[in-house]
């Protein structure tokens, strides 16, 4: 499958840029941690509340940080006409989409690990039901990265891209936020079997957002 090879090429390019510029490591990850700490400040007086709210706060922090990741992913294409280069490279639009989404997903996975440790240490959460947590995280990460990439290219090339992306992405990912939070709640403190419908919902979101991206990214890239 040449499309997967092309996708790997684009993903490797994006990740190489991130490794050299260290924006993801030195700005996006710390941002996520700061959000986590801010939530703790806001709810500090009631110690018992933090572990119960941890799933929602974890995903809210991740969502806010993922906006930065999406913006960053398209900011690197903005400079020096890199987007024109991508457009003229002859790569399949779907492959470019998959590549960029995979790179964002990899950054989000790293962020989830850091935030996960943060939640355990700062919010006093005991991890349980690793399988549910893992599947939830995988499906939610794919859905977030794919949706972010779609709206990233929708807003690409506009002067107000940085402020427009959150306005477009955040409403579109509410099902992901909801599903992931409820699944985590069930896994960590509730009835674990109640998590499965939410994991399925997340799976559907992931599949749908990837389909939309595969179909729409090419035409949108041509136009931007």
């Amino acid at each position, binding site marked *: 499958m040449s499309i997967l090879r092309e996708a790997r090429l684009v993903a490797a390019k994006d990740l190489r840029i991130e490794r050299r510029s260290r924006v993801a490591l030195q700005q996006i990850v710390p941002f996520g941690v700061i959000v986590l700490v801010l939530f703790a400040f806001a709810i500090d007086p009631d110690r018992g509340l933090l572990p119960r709210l941890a799933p929602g706060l974890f995903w809210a922090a991740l969502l806010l940080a993922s906006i930065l990741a999406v913006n960053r992913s398209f900011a690197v294409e903005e400079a020096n006409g890199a987007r024109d280069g991508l457009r003229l490279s002859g790569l399949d639009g779907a492959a470019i989409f998959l590549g960029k989404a995979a790179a964002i997903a990899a950054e989000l996975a790293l962020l989830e690990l850091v935030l996960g440790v943060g939640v355990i240490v700062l919010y006093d959460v005991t991890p349980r039901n690793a399988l549910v947590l893992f599947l939830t995280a995988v499906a939610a990460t794919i859905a977030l990265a794919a949706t972010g990439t779609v709206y990233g290219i929708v807003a690409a090339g506009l002067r107000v891209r940085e402020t427009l992306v959150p306005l477009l992405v955040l409403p579109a990912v509410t099902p992901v936020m909801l599903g992931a939070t409820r699944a985590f709640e069930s896994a960590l403190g509730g009835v674990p079997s109640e998590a499965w419908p939410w994991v399925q919902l997340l799976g559907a979101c992931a599949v749908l957002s990837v389909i939309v991206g*595969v179909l729409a990214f090419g035409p949108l890239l041509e136009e931007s």
Partner: protein
Amino acid sequence: MTDTQLPPVRPKQRMHLRYTLAAVACLAIVAWMFTELRGAVVYLRPVSYAVSHRSAQGTRTFRMGGTVVPGTIAKSSDGARFEVMEGGAKAQVDYSGGPRDLFRDCAPVVVEGHWAGNVFTASRLLIRHGSAYDASKRADANCRASTS
């Protein structure tokens, strides 16, 4: 020479194939939503479910929906005690909070709270209402007729 190095033009058929696959996948997801997802989004638990899962729920807060059993309402200064029923199950509710306009026998209600033993301790009481509108008769006529 240069011609061979240019990337190949994407055939139109490939896009058609992609659209077909996407349509099939979307249809499958929609069909699956209609069948499987129905239990996923839970705003409230029916009384029967809440009663049968009482031990699993522990003291966690959730919303329970049912109908007020006629003749069981005992109002107090800061709330009310009453029974709700649904699907053949009944539960005792201890509600503390403000009064509601439409709260009475046979009213369809949603209570938010948790189990305390066999009693459901509620801090919020919401009234659902049906989709029927009528100037002369109440929507809960069935409940009244069956219990009186």
